[in-house]
C-alpha cells in the first residue's frame, strides 16, 4: 500500500520578475518501508517536491495538486494543527546543511526532546532518557556529555547525526532526507550513509532520499526517481535505472559518474548545455534543448508516460513505437 501518494503536483514561486515553475505536474508514490531516491541536478525541483509535501515552503510559494495523500489522508485538506501533528511524528525530515539546521542557542537535549514532548507528551526525564537512547542509536560517542552541549560544539558529521536522531525521534512512518550528505566531506558522507542504511534495516520507516549524486544511492535505494526541469524523466528500480535506463538524461547522468576501474586519462562525459530557465521553461520536454536525440516533437509536446515492467516509467518521445531506435549511451 502506498504511504505517500502524490498526483499532478505543481509548485510555483511568484517572485518579482515572474513565476518560477519549480515543479510542473509530477506524480509519484512512496510505499511503506521502502527506500526511494529522488535524483536530479540543482533546480530540478527535487527538494521543492518534498518541501511541498511537508508544507515547509515560504508563503510566496503556491502548491497545487490533484491529490496528495499520506497514509490515506489528504494532506491538502488538513489544517495547520493536523499538519503539525504529522510533522515530526509521522514524517521526519533531515536537511542538507547540518551547520545551520540546528538552532545555535538551544542545547542538543532541548532540541532533541522537543518532538518527544510535543508529540508523545513526554516529561523532562523521560524525554532525556529517550534522547540519550537516540544519540546512542545514531552512534554519537559519550552521549551523556553531548546532550548538554550546543550545536557549535559538534562537528558537521555529528550535527547531521543529531538531525537524524531528531527526525527519527518519534518513530515516523517516513523520513525525508534532503541531500543529507552534500555538505559533508567524503569519509563523513560514507558514515552518514551507513547510518541511514542501518536505519532502513532497524526501523520500518520509508526513507525518501533526495540527492544529486546517483552514486550515493545506488546500493541503498529500492526505487529511483530521476527528475529534470521540474518533471520526472524516468522512474524505476535501482536495476532499471542503472542497467536498463531509457531516458537520454538518465544516460547522461550515468555517463558522468566516475568509475573506479576507469583509465585515469579517460575523460568524464558531461551533459552539454545548461539547465532550463524555470521562469520560462521550454515547451515540450524540458531536456530537449540538451538532448542529443532531440526530435521536432520533443520541443512541442510534453512526453507522455510509457510504462515498462515492474513500475519502470519513462517520459520520453523516443519510447514511441514510430520513434527512431537510438543507441544507448551507457557503456556497461
Amino acid at each position, binding site marked *: 500500500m502506498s504511504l505517500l501518494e502524490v498526483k499532478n503536483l505543481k509548485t510555483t514561486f511568484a517572485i518579482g520578475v515572474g513565476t518560477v515553475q519549480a515543479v510542473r505536474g509530477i506524480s509519484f508514490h512512496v510505499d511503506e518501508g521502502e527506500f526511494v531516491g529522488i535524483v536530479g541536478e540543482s533546480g530540478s525541483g527535487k527538494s521543492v517536491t518534498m518541501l511541498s509535501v511537508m508544507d515547509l515552503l515560504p508563503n510566496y510559494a503556491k502548491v497545487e495538486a490533484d491529490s496528495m495523500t499520506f497514509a490515506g489522508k489528504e494532506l491538502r485538506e488538513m489544517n*495547520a494543527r493536523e499538519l503539525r501533528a504529522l*510533522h*515530526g511524528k509521522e514524517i521526519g525530515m533531515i*536537511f542538507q546543511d547540518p551547520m*545551520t539546521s540546528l*538552532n545555535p542557542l538551544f542545547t542538543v537535549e532541548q532540541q532533541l526532546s522537543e518532538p518527544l514532548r510535543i508529540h508523545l507528551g513526554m516529561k523532562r526525564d523521560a524525554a532525556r532518557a529517550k534522547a540519550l537512547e537516540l544519540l546512542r542509536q545514531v552512534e554519537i560517542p559519550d552521549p551523556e556529555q553531548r546532550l548538554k552541549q550546543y550545536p*557549535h560544539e559538534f562537528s558537521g558529521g555529528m550535527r547531521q547525526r543529531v*538531525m537524524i536522531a531528531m527526525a527519527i525521534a518519534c518513530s515516523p512512518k517516513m523520513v525525508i532526507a534532503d541531500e543529507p550528505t552534500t555538505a559533508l566531506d567524503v569519509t563523513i558522507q560514507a558514515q552518514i550513509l551507513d547510518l541511514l542504511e542501518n536505519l532502513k534495516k532497524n526501523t520500518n520507516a520509508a526513507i525518501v532520499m533526495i540527492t544529486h549524486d546517483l552514486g550515493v544511492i545506488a546500493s541503498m535505494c529500492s526505487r529511483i526517481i530521476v527528475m529534470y526541469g521540474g518533471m520526472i524523466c524516468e522512474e524505476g528500480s535501482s536495476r532499471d535505472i542503472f542497467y536498463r535506463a531509457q531516458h537520454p538524461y538518465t544516460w547522461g547522468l550515468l555517463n558522468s559518474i566516475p568509475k573506479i576501474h576507469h583509465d585515469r586519462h579517460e575523460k568524464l562525459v558531461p551533459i552539454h548545455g545548461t539547465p532550463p530557465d524555470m521562469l520560462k521553461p521550454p515547451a515540450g520536454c524540458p531536456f530537449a534543448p540538451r538532448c542529443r536525440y532531440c526530435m521536432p516533437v520533443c520541443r512541442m509536446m510534453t512526453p507522455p508516460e510509457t510504462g515498462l515492467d515492474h513500475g519502470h516509467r519513462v517520459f520520453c518521445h523516443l519510447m514511441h513505437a514510430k520513434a527512431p531506435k537510438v543507441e544507448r549511451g551507457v557503456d556497461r
Partner: protein
Amino acid sequence: MLRYILKRLMAGVLTIVILITVAFFMMHAMPGSPFSPAEQKNVPPEILERLAESYGLNRPILEQYLEYWKSLLNGELGISFKKPDTSVNSIIATHFPVSAQVGGIAVIFSLMVGIPLGIVSAMHRGKAADFATMAFATIGISVPTYVFSVLLLWFFAGVCHLSITVWWDQWYNYLLPVACLSFNPIAYIARQTRSSMLEALEADYIRTARAKGVSELMVVAKHALKNAITPVVTYLGPLVAGLLTGSFVVERFFSVPGIGRYFVTSVSDRDYTMIMGIVIFFGVFVVICNLISDILLAVIDPRVKLSK
C-alpha cells in the same frame, strides 16, 4: 565567569581613572572659573578672591588634581560650588532615585512596546501593519526628543489644559516624561527587532523547528525570538545607562526633580565638583551597564565566550 567579571571591572576602573583625569583637566581648561570677577559682577573681587582660596582654586592645578583624588578615595565628591553646604554625594543621592525611577519605567516600557512591535511587523512583512510600524519607527528615530517633548507639552498643557506637567507628586506626572524618554528607544528597538527577526525567520533552524511540528507561536516566540533578541541586548547597556541617569530636556520640560538637569547646569555654573561628580557617576554607570549587558548576551548565546 568570575574571572571575566573581575577582569572587566579592572578595565572599568582604568577607564574611570582616565575619564576622571581627562574631565578634570578639560574642565579647568574651560574659559572662566566659578569665581571669576568677569562673571560675578555683583560680588566684590576681594570676596571672590577669598572664595577661590577657600576652595583651593589658587593652588597649582596638579596639586588640586591630587587633592581631588584624595577626597575621592575617601568616597567624597566634594562640596558643590553652587549650593554651599551641600555635598555632591547628597545631591546625587536625592535626585538620582527620581531619574532612575522614571528611566527604569521608560526602559521597561520601551522593551515591552518595541519588541512586540518589531515581531508583529516582521511577521506581517510588506503588509499594512509593517508599513505603519516602520513609518512610526522612522519618525521615532528621526524626531529629536526635545521636539517630541515640546509637542506633548503643547498638546496636553496648551491644548487640553491639563496640569499633569506642573508638579511632581502624582502618578500621572510620570506619563509624559516616560513617553518622551521611550519614544526614541521604542523606535530603535522595533526596527532592530524587525530586521533581526526577519533574518531569524528565514534561517534553516526555523524550517527544522517547523518540520518537527513545533507550533507557529513557539517557532516565533522561542526559536526565532531568542536569536533575534541579541542585538537588542547589546543595545540595552547604553540604553539603561542613558535613561536611568535622566535627561536634561525631559526633566526640565516636565519638572522632574531628577539628576538630568545637572549634566548641563553644572557645566554652565562652573560647578567644578558637581561636574566631576556627574561625570564619574555616569561613567561608572555606563561601565556597569555594559558589563551586565555583555554577561546577559553570553547567557543567551553560548557561542559568546566571556573569557575573550
